[in-house]
């Protein structure tokens, strides 16, 4: 797009084309847009809209207007909303700072008449071609720059980038807030774009939060920040690999801090995101799901998860580990279970920690029934994967199991057996309450 006035850089060897009259150049510009849109079926209301916006725009703002129009129209084309958006009532792009002139059909015909009149002596075919061609190149350059450019510097709300946003509709907003940090507040009304951070800002926020988590380890703060990030992503309907990254990071942080509630929320979302085909650590989180089912002992869920798994998924290291844990538990092979526990990949260890004591009681039951007459505490601690013998002593003391007070403390297995059984009863009771059938 060009205007004879605003052409500082381009050194055209030809004589600069004179702007005959404002209206003519308006129509030419709009025609040029029409020609380069690649879609000749523009509704008249759209052509009208373009014309009106140029008419309402001062020459200094014209470049910005072109950019905005390009964006609006190309996103409408991509979403096939060309005909469904009501261009007559759609507000003009923000670059229009003059009074919008009323659309009069009379004006149009005079303008088109004007085009025909002047085409003979001024716009030879060749020159018209060159102009259109030039506009095309500029438009392409414009589009290329737009892709790479960060959107956060523009204060004007823009239609969302359709690569990142699915289910774009009239209610989806694009945020304009540039503050990196924001506490979480539950939404009670429609979101305000000035409070919502756009994608580029959120990327920076994630980096900041990762650093802060490592440095400060303040979970309340981090959790609130992550939740507000998730809120911003949801409100802008951004579903891409960045969304996956945010949920994954929050899930890991929640696991580390033992917040199963938030972990579960993230896991649910991640399941859907992976199902959409978005890249991420799907196998890692599949392993976490299996370990979680082992915690709840929900056989129906385990069965369903196994039924839905592909053979290729079962070969993945994390998933294989989780399945081996399941098999060891089913076989009552506590030794293998604890060996696997000590070698859990990623953050699965935190999940197993949730039910490790239950498994320790079950294993102790078996050991008490089978071994005679005594077992040293050192052996018990090793078998039950206690890193420190003192932890083992504490564990046994909590179950009221007597430990001999000599230099190598040991436990009388026969006497300890009823205590171990009693301990398991507690776990059975708790689990029945918590289980979901």
């Amino acid at each position, binding site marked *: 797009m060009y205007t004879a006035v605003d052409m500082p850089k381009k050194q055209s060897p030809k004589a600069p084309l004179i702007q005959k009259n404002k209206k003519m150049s308006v129509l030419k510009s709009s025609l040029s847009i029409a020609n380069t849109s690649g879609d000749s079926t523009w509704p008249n209301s759209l052509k009208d809209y373009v014309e009106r916006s140029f008419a309402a725009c001062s020459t200094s703002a014209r470049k910005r207007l072109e950019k905005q129009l390009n964006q609006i129209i190309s996103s409408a084309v991509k979403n096939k909303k060309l005909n469904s958006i009501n261009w007559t009532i759609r507000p003009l792009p923000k670059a229009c700072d003059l009074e919008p002139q009323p659309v009069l059909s009379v004006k149009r015909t005079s303008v088109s008449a004007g085009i025909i009149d002047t085409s003979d002596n001024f716009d030879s075919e060749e020159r018209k071609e060159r102009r259109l061609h030039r506009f095309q190149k500029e438009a392409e350059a414009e589009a290329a720059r737009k892709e790479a450019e960060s959107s956060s510097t523009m204060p004007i709300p823009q239609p969302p980038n359709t690569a990142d946003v699915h289910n774009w509709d009239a209610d989806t907003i694009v945020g304009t807030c540039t503050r990196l940090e924001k506490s979480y507040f539950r939404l009670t009304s429609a979101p305000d774009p000035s409070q919502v951070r756009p994608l580029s800002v959120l990327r920076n926020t994630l980096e900041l939060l990762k650093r802060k988590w490592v440095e400060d380890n303040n979970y309340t703060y981090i959790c609130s920040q992550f939740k507000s990030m998730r809120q911003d992503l949801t409100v802008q309907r951004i579903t891409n690999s960045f969304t996956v990254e945010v949920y994954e990071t929050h899930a890991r942080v929640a696991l580390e801090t033992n917040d199963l509630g938030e972990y579960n929320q993230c896991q649910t979302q991640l399941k859907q995101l992976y199902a959409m085909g978005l890249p991420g650590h799907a196998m890692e989180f599949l392993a976490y799901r299996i370990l979680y089912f082992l915690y709840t002992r929900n056989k129906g869920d385990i069965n369903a998860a*196994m*039924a839905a798994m592909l053979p290729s998924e079962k070969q993945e290291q994390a998933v294989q580990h989780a399945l081996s844990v399941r098999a060891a538990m089913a076989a009552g092979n506590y030794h293998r279970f604890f060996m696997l526990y000590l070698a859990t990949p990623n953050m699965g260890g935190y999940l197993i920690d949730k039910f490790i004591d239950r498994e320790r009681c079950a294993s102790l*039951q078996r050991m008490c029934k089978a071994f005679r007459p005594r077992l040293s505490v050192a052996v018990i601690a090793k078998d039950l994967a206690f890193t420190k013998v003192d932890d083992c002593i504490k564990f046994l003391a909590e179950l009221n199991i007597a430990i001999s007070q000599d230099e190598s403390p040991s436990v009388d297995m026969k006497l300890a057996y009823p205590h171990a059984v009693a301990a398991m009863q507690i776990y059975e009771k708790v689990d029945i309450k918590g289980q979901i059938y």
Partner: protein
Amino acid sequence: MAGCQRLAQAQHKFKTLNTVNNGAELAQVIQLSSLYTDRVLEDIHKEYGSWDVLEMQPTRGVWDEIAVTHFQAAAAYRLRSFVDAYTRQLSSFNAFLRIFRNMTQWSLPVLYTLSRDLCDVAQRADHQLTTSSSQGGKLEEATRAINQGFSLCMTDREPLLSKSRKWGTFRMANILFALYVRHKAYNLCDSMIRALKASELPPLEQFPMSDQVTFRYYRGMLAFRNEKYTSAKEDLLFALEHCFRDSYNNKTRILVCLTPILMAEGRAPHSRLLRRYPPIKAMYGELAKAAKAGNLRRFDELLQEKEQLFVNTGTFMAVERVRKVAIRQLLRKIYVLTGQNSRMSFQMLCDGFAAAGITDIDIPEMESVLADMVFCGYIKGYLSHDHGIAVLSKLQPFPPLVSIA
């Protein structure tokens, strides 16, 4: 509008059958595919050229309504517009339910027929809808209607037991089970069983045998799903033994659940049974052989091979239980081969396992496996960690598998 003569005759017939409480014949004629219905529809078609006249039939009273909607449904069925047929059948069913409240035991066959037809039409309607890529869901609606019929049976207040509608309860329950299982709504199944247990019904044994067998199959299958293997075994055995002799498919279904339970008790399926039921043979035949022989390596191989099959049929957990039988058999073999010495070192057992093809078990793991065996009761004896040996009972080191819970 005088209405169709033939149709009026049919309506009259329904009403008479109702008055004389002839449940059997009424059930027969009210079937969508009954000869009577065919004849009536044919006559109407011959007279009027189409079935539109059915829409305009005046109705006085519920039986008229039931009759007319029934014929409309049948007509739509013949025209293969199943969604239409479904709607009519549903309204016929609901109309029947309205008067069913005041009916007694004689009308149960009618209820059964209507329910069966309703399910059939709903399924066909769903199929039609899904192939034309719209939403199914008719079967779910039908399920709700049938649930109503079921509760009307169960909550009957009739003091005279021989006239009570309660006799239809288990039949309706079985229809509902089939529907719920199809929708994978197992929690609804469980709640229905609880409701049945809590209600004041005559004992199950007094109901018709076919109702008993079907009900016990479902109850056993649900217990199986919840890992309550003892009660599952009881119900499934009963169902198998009393099942109608020629119901091959039903018996196969019972066996799919029953076989792993029995295998875990050490009862391998008999060769005659395997011959008669090839699907069972394909699923469990080799596994049973491997478990019996103590061939743990082969057992694990087969388990991995057929894992997907077991997971899909919901029998994977049950089959895993059989693995312990395989381990027990292997231990017993080693015991016998080494001269029935009641003191067996862990090292020797590891060597025995290695000879059998399982090379990745070390002594700590062997201790754990043995501890589990002792705990579950497969071995009688104790382990000495310090001496590194297992000391088995002299009397009965390997108790019979049947005695283990």
